[in-house]
């Protein structure tokens, strides 16, 4: 009788070496320079690609196995959500504004990240980063698809979900996230990795996903908890890749330090501006709040970011240039943003609203140094205007920052009563900025940013030609349905009726 001999399994390190490093080869038909033409022009010097370490040592076979399991878990819950009228379990339909912003601005960003990683995976000469970037490229397209799929369940019942692809390209506020990703994708491969892999994934992504998922969990949105968790299980790997990239580049050559530091300064500030929208979600849009933006910043910004930069100090890296200005903005930004979203709500494919007395009590408690002094009086005034039948609407066009593309609604870092505005003259034109950070980014690469597509100048070109109704058609915004104050919306009316039907026998 034959004895069954157990096959010796490869250890993790051996398996990684066999199934990753051994996939590479030395080219013989073409030179390496011809094969990887973009790897040198940014000035980053790499002497030995084999020094690249993937701390998780994930190989492609294990990757497919675990990703398949994540998908199965995801679809089991999405099906249950759809089959059980999951949308009626929400705390309140106000919550959906956060989801609409996510679908219009963030999910297309996942798709952009997919394209970016597919590209840099091709452009790096080392096998380690090629495999890691390939996995991340597949992760990112999975995120875009599962998010669109999960939120399509809400599109059956609520407004504002129907035209996210048009709105990604055309509506004004999504250009903030779009320009961020376009900026990274049109940079060189190393800058892309520092932009998305390190600055966005490692330094800032916790501030986006962790509160967003917890927010969904607190507010009864099973679909979003599920896509959030499914995506986030990949993020830990992305973050580890981001940290690995920066260590690898810095250890390869001391000349790389100033280039990398400059990218960290730039991409921290770009990312901080994009994620500012999350602050409105945490402080205003969640009917049942998780923690304030200030509290999230303390945990994931100050504490975690502080530990990271302390650790990287051994390479000579210093905290990003805008770090202190970011800290000063924390107690103000969600209020300044939300006041902007409210006054321009005729032009947004989601609803804004005036915070209730309860909401304002919470905001006072969370922002004791700023809310009652600077923001409550404005909301109280706006509330009076709405009660008098003359709601405050700003039909003027916002002045946009040439770099981050947000309206210039922020105040000076050291004076919350003075609007922050910077300008630079370049080649006979004047360019406007919301902050020192954005002005610095422009002045380092003016030829790049003067080409930026900005939604406000587009308003005066074909096919819109300055007509608001034509603009709404062009951005697929249904006036009176998708936009305006939540208090007067179809979403509010329908949610209340449907919830009533679900909990009574009428």
């Amino acid at each position, binding site marked *: 009788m034959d004895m069954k001999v157990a096959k010796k399994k490869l250890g993790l390190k051996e398996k990684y070496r066999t199934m990753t490093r051994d996939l590479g080869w030395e080219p013989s038909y073409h030179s390496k320079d011809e094969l990887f033409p973009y790897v040198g022009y940014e000035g980053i010097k790499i002497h030995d690609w084999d020094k690249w370490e993937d701390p998780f040592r994930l190989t492609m076979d294990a990757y497919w196995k*675990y990703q398949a399991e994540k998908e199965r878990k995801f679809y089991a819950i999405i099906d249950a959500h759809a089959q059980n009228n999951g949308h009626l379990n929400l705390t309140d339909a106000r919550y959906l504004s956060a989801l609409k912003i996510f679908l219009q601005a963030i999910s297309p960003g996942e798709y952009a990240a997919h394209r970016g990683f597919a590209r840099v995976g091709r452009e790096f000469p080392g096998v380690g980063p090629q495999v890691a970037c390939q996995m991340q490229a597949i992760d990112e397209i999975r995120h875009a698809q599962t998010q669109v799929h999960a939120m399509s369940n809400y599109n059956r019942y609520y407004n504002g979900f129907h035209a996210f692809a048009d709105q990604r390209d055309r509506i004004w506020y999504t250009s903030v996230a779009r320009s961020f990703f376009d900026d990274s994708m049109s940079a060189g491969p190393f800058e892309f990795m520092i932009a998305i892999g390190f600055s966005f994934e490692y330094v800032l992504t916790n501030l986006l*996903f962790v509160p967003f998922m917890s927010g969904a969990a607190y507010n009864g949105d099973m679909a979003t908890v599920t896509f959030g968790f499914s995506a986030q299980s990949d993020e*830990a*790997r992305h973050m*580890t890749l981001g940290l690995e990239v920066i260590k690898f580049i810095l250890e390869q050559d001391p000349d790389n330090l100033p280039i990398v530091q400059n990218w960290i300064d730039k991409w921290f500030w770009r990312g901080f501006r994009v994620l500012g929208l999350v602050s409105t979600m945490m402080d205003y849009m969640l009917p049942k709040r998780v923690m304030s933006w200030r509290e999230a910043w303390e945990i994931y910004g100050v504490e975690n970011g502080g530990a990271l930069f302390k650790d990287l100090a051994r390479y000579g890296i210093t905290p990003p240039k805008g770090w202190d200005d970011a800290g000063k903005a924390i107690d103000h930004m969600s209020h300044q943003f939300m006041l902007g979203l409210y006054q321009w709500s005729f032009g947004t494919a989601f609803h804004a609203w005036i915070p209730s007395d309860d909401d304002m009590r919470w905001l006072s408690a969370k922002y004791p140094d700023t809310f009652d002094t600077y923001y409550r009086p404005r909301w109280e005034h706006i509330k009076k205007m709405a009660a008098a039948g003359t709601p405050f609407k700003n039909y003027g066009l916002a002045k946009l920052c040439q770099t981050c593309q947000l309206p210039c609604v922020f105040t000076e870092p050291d004076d919350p009563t003075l609007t922050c505005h910077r300008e630079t003259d370049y080649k006979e034109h004047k360019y406007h900025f919301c902050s020192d950070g954005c002005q610095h980014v422009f002045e380092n690469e003016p030829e790049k940013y003067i080409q930026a597509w900005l939604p406000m100048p587009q308003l005066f070109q074909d096919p819109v030609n300055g007509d608001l109704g034509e603009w709404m058609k062009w951005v697929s915004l249904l006036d009176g349905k998708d936009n305006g104050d939540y208090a007067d919306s179809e979403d509010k009316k329908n949610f209340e009726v449907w919830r009533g039907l679900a909990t009574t026998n009428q």
Partner: protein
Amino acid sequence: MSTVFIALQANEETRPIIEAIEIDNPAAVVNRQPAMVKIDAEGSLVIRKATIEEQLGRSFDLQELHINLITLTGHVEEDDDSLTLSWNS
């Protein structure tokens, strides 16, 4: 020392993993939040395969952690038997 952390989804699969982390890192602080558990530790945190297997009652591949992982921080050092998170300063 700086703090490292790991956050896992709160579900039946992670319950024994979290118990194992508590056994191996007695000084770690476990924060239970809706749908997620975040574990903070000063300086470093270790996750051991053998301890998880004892809690779980079956064999466990450390890479299964990926399925329920939400986020982590610090440098990652992983081999067949353990995964360690740490900061150098």
